[in-house]
């Protein structure tokens, strides 16, 4: 399902003294099956864009096309329910949305709201708990008895259980330990690869964006200022600095190495693995000569 933002502007608390414009003419196209990262400094409008992606917010100006549904300021939409089933959002600190008596019921809440039968919802819950690396015993526990990391996983399972076509993630690993971060990010990547799940990742982490995303959009002061592949985005360090962003650690390291050795690697390495490979290659070549 494609999502297209055309000239979207949004103002919070419109027509009150608290009015605050958050988005200015944002254009963004998220094709079906892609992995799109949205990065930007705090307060750049990332989270506001995200809430537009399943029509929780309606643009004050401009249009959003979510699959077949068109969302506009003055248009009443009856199809929003369908949109919300197809676009699952994992909000920041999603564990705050847990409420039910047991983990099982909480995970089943989403799908059952969208008309999935009890048996099917239960089947999905059991499957997802396994997928997210939680022991099956947690299903009968109260979500409030779990640890923070486990709560996070349960909340993510609650969104995945809706079987969305597009998965929108708002800082899904904020506050997790490094190992938990990697596990969860790898899981999302696997889902994206295996099931062709369109993924939108809103993040502060340049590392995550460069490692996982196909395309990156940079938000700055409510505008979408830059859009492209990770290679394109991270080849221009000065521009990133303008937007108060930095290069990912691994590319920084690559630049240092290039500087000290007075040469250039053939391409920008987005992950530690590719960087290591390139360097090994280089060393081997030099040894052979």
């Amino acid at each position: 399902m494609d999502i297209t933002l055309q000239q979207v502007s949004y103002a919070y608390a419109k027509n009150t003294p608290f009015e605050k414009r958050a988005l200015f003419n944002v254009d963004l196209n998220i094709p079906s099956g892609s992995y799109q990262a949205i990065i930007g400094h705090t307060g750049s409008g990332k989270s506001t864009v995200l809430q537009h992606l399943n029509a929780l917010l309606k643009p004050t100006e401009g249009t959003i096309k979510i699959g077949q549904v068109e969302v506009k300021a003055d248009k009443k939409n009856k199809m929003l329910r369908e949109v919300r089933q197809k676009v699952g959002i994992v909000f920041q600190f999603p564990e705050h949305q847990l409420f039910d008596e047991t983990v099982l019921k909480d995970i089943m809440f989403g799908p059952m709201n969208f008309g999935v039968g009890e048996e099917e919802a239960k089947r999905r819950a059991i499957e997802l708990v396994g997928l997210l690396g939680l022991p099956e015993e947690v299903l009968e526990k109260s979500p409030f008895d779990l640890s923070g990391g486990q709560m996070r996983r349960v909340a993510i399972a609650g969104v995945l259980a809706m079987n969305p076509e597009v998965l929108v993630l708002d800082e899904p690993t904020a506050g997790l330990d490094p190992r938990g971060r990697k596990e969860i990010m790898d899981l999302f990547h696997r889902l994206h690869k295996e099931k062709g799940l369109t993924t939108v990742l809103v993040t502060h982490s340049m590392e995550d964006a460069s490692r996982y995303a196909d395309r990156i959009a940079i938000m700055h002061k409510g505008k979408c200022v830059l859009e492209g592949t990770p290679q394109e985005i991270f080849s221009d360090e000065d521009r990133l600095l303008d937007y108060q962003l930095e290069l990912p650690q691994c590319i920084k390291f690559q630049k240092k190495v290039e500087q000290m050795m007075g040469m250039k690697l053939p391409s920008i390495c987005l992950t530690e693995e590719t960087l290591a490979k390139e360097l090994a290659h280089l060393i081997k070549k030099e040894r052979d000569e």
Partner: protein
Amino acid sequence: MLEKMIFGRFIPGDSFIHRLDARAKLIFVFLFIAIVFIANDWITYGILLVFTFLIIRLSKIRLYFLINGLKPVVILIVFTFLLHLIFTREGPIIFEWKFIKIYEEGLRQGIFISIRFFVLVILTSILTLTTTPISITDALEILLNPLKKWKLPVHELALMMSISLRFIPTLMDETDKIMKAQMARGSDMTTGTMKERMNAIVPLLIPLFVSAFKRAEDLATAMEVRGYKGGEGRTRYRKLEWARRDTISILLLVVLAAVLIYFRK
């Protein structure tokens, strides 16, 4: 959708009303609440309305914003209006349809009560909109200070009030956030049948309670860590200062009361 609510919010500004001492404003509002009950006919209620609009002008708050923010109260006003309209049975009948009879006195009472309600709500909202919650509680603490003699925990009460006022916007934001998260999971409080909406309340309230308790605990810890131990011997960073304009505005109220008493039936 909750961003339109204005209860407990403060709009920074520099109007005459903003500059008044919080104690003056508090006394003003309390006196005004009493004075409103002097009015009993068209002229006096008219004077009240004019007086209220004057104060709105002085506060430089946009009327549209005020009215928009008071929508929830409007329902209450309409409801009381209808009650008076239907159940007051005095004076000549002015309208009759099947079993509904509307009497002149009912219409009049309805309008009067609505004006009274409107004026009171507007004035109290202006109080909270133009005064920071902290100065309101400071003022209250000072005004209630004499009651300490009778062992009333004035400081603790003021503190409780300031904390609850402080947390209204926070909880409001929290509600908005959780509501959106549950909406994304297909549980929508704003659409659907009555039963569906009722069902959508539980997934909203439970997370809200959980986070409110967590916040309370965090706040208590933070206060203890910073050595808070109640009002005994506590000095103030902000000092309230009574100026001439404060005296004038209280006197103005006395004038209003006199005018109302003169014109009332």
